[in-house]
């Protein structure tokens, strides 16, 4: 333990990869298999298209992971994505323009998240049921705005985000960098403390309530951003398109080693988990598996991937 002081941050980062190597290895194996089955993946177009399909799931997995780290969980992820999408498809082609419309989408997402967060944190209601109730309210709102799929997104915007360039990947890197920046602030780091040991964190002077509510806000923001992207990717809005994201985001976060009890896990894990889920869809297609096998394989892969490190880590009876 000598002087390498400024390296502390990087050493901490490195330690946090611990326990994730197996997941990274599995993801790498799947990528290798994918490339073997579809060499075209390694072209700009291939990477662009793949990352576009991964991107929204990556964002919602981050949205879920933020909350799980803060000791919460959200069942309104999917509804918020849908809401973001329909608002985008309503406003982006309108007088507010792309910039104004996107800002509204993100604001609405953050606001719905903050509202849920406030109820959970300040009124002391369990997150899982608050967000379940919120999912109905948000889904209803999306249906009011757009009772059926429709609306439009300017073509140039769609082409920019979801054309034949890996812009989505770049955005993901940007989001990850912003997240790292956030974690490097006292408020961001408090998330872990607030999630795992709120009483202790409060006594230490960490902004517990604030960081938890902020986590809900961030989560809503990320979901709305995913909705915005889906609207751009599909060129329109759909009031129910996000539904599957709720459970997928939980599966991705858990695959990535994020725990349900708060303060356990890393964002990189959640991202790797989402990548695994996303890549699995394509790989199973290229393997030519029939739908039955797809369901069965998906169930098994998830269970095995979650079980393996647990079994390996069964050193102590900690829970």
């Amino acid at each position, binding site marked *: 333990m000598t002087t390498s002081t400024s390296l502390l941050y990087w050493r*901490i980062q490195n330690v946090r990869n611990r326990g994730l190597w197996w997941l990274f290895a599995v993801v790498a194996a799947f990528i290798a298999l994918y490339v073997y089955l579809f060499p075209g993946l390694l072209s700009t177009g291939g990477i662009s298209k793949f990352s576009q399909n991964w991107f929204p799931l990556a964002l919602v997995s981050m949205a879920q992971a933020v909350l799980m780290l803060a000791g919460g969980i959200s069942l309104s992820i999917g509804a918020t994505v849908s809401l973001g999408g329909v608002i985008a498809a309503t406003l982006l082609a309108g007088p507010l323009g792309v910039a104004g419309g996107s800002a509204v989408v993100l604001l609405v997402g953050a606001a719905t998240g903050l509202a849920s967060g406030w109820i959970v944190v300040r009124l002391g209601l369990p997150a899982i049921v608050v967000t379940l109730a919120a999912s109905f309210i948000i889904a209803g709102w999306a249906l009011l705005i757009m009772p059926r799929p429709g609306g439009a997104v300017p073509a140039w915007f769609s082409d920019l985000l979801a054309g034949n360039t890996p812009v989505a990947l770049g955005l993901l890197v940007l989001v990850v960098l912003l997240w790292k920046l956030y974690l490097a602030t006292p408020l961001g780091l408090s998330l*872990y403390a607030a999630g795992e040991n709120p009483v202790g964190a409060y006594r230490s002077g960490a902004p517990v309530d604030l960081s938890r509510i902020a986590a809900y806000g961030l989560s809503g923001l990320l979901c709305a951003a995913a909705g915005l992207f889906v609207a751009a990717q599909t060129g329109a809005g759909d009031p129910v398109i996000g539904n599957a994201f709720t459970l997928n985001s939980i599966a991705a976060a858990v695959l990535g080693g994020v725990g349900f009890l708060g303060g356990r896990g890393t964002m990189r894990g959640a991202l790797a988990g989402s990548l695994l889920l996303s890549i699995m869809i394509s790989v199973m297609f290229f393997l030519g598996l029939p739908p039955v096998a797809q369901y069965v394989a998906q169930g098994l892969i998830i269970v095995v991937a979650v079980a393996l490190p647990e079994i390996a880590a069964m050193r*102590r009876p900690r829970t």
Partner: protein
Amino acid sequence: MTQDAIVAARSISRSFFSNRVLNDVSITLRAGTIHALLGENGAGKSTLIGILSGALAPDAGDIDIDGVRHAAVRPAIARAAGIAVVQQELSLTSQLSIAENVGMGALPRRLGLIDYSALMRRAHEVCALVGLEQDLARPVGDLPLGQQQLVEIAKALFRKPRVLILDEPTSSLSAHEAANLMAVLRRLRDAGTAVLYISHRLNEVLALCEWVTVLKDGVVTADRSLGGVDAQGLVRLMVGREPGDLFPRWTPSAEPAPIIAVEGLSAGMVRDVAMTIRRGEVLGVGGLVGQGQEDLLLGLYGAIPAVAGRAEFNGVVGLPRSVPQANARGLAYVPADRKREGLHLIHSIAWNLMIPSFGRAPSLAMRRTASERERAIALADRLGIKGDLTREVQALSGGNQQKVALAKWLPSDPPVLLLNDPTRGVDVDTKREIYALLRRFAAEGRAVVLLSSDTPELVNLCDRVAVMRAGRLVRVLERTELSEEAIVSAAMESAVPGAAA
């Protein structure tokens, strides 16, 4: 006592629901003084410091900080005044690094971001001060309990406190680490810090403190200089009557037949341990904190995967593969971290006392409320757990919680008791009861394995003491060789001379 009062609390009262925990309590903390706060379990010590640090609000009374009067201290005010607290309960985040934990709540920042190089520098200083020699990037969750407690202390020092309050900081530290902490506190005192020190280890208090305030049932019963007070006198102050000897008289056990014998035991950190545990003895397990002592107990208890070259338990060959199997072979285990491992905090005392019997009884047998109540009352009486047994365990003071964690095993009359620091945070009177109980156990021909971080306890209570270092059993000290120095030097020996018993 010429120094300035930094914090002066006057006539503080506080109730939880209708239970008055503090009644008209006054206390003054002065710069450059180490001030002891003593009292039995549940006397109100933790509550008082909660009020001093702003975590709790008093019902009545007021507090002067630097001469400014406050009806209630808010956490921000306390922090601004330089009051730092080492809580009895850990306030750490297991996945964050040591450095981040030390800085949590007071992280140095630059441009709004955490200044990691400043954090590293300052965290390194305070960790070195408390003798925590660990990579600061390690997640705190990896550290054994004792080292986590050091992190907790480092965390308080990190704030450069003018008033440092420590609530049982040494309860899971070994003698070596505790001595180190004393030295730190003396240095802080000399630099003008006011220290409020709570401990149930009276020898520490005598060695360290100049002034003492004693609480009994929420009332101050003594507030005086410690000059000229000896251990007996301290206990008298606390208990209010003439104390007996803390440790019962040691008598050699009549029946030294082995009840457990293992060879080549590996479990968790434990490597290749050979040992025998004999009927009628109290076998101490000592060493520096976190050398695999806990894993040894858990391995014997079937709670973590373990392998052994040879093992015989109470006549049965082989290690127990699960806790119920270990229970069936007559082992019981009392964990150190009672909140996480020993108790069901949100449930009643009576219910907690019944838990092992829920595991043993047939799943679908009808529960009988009346007999459960009788048994609960008998157990509570046996260990002096007072009051309404339908209270949630989390409303009990730390020491009383410990009693519940121990008491729940008594009905099954286990021939082997594995105890992981059972007197941690227990007041002196209860300690005496527990010690007497343990010796009685031994005298009845049972075996007691006592993992302890309290070295006097090992010296005075045990028949033999096994000292561990880095997962290996380095020495087994016989009764005749037992002394604090012998244990500490065995624990610190760098080379392993011929090892093991």
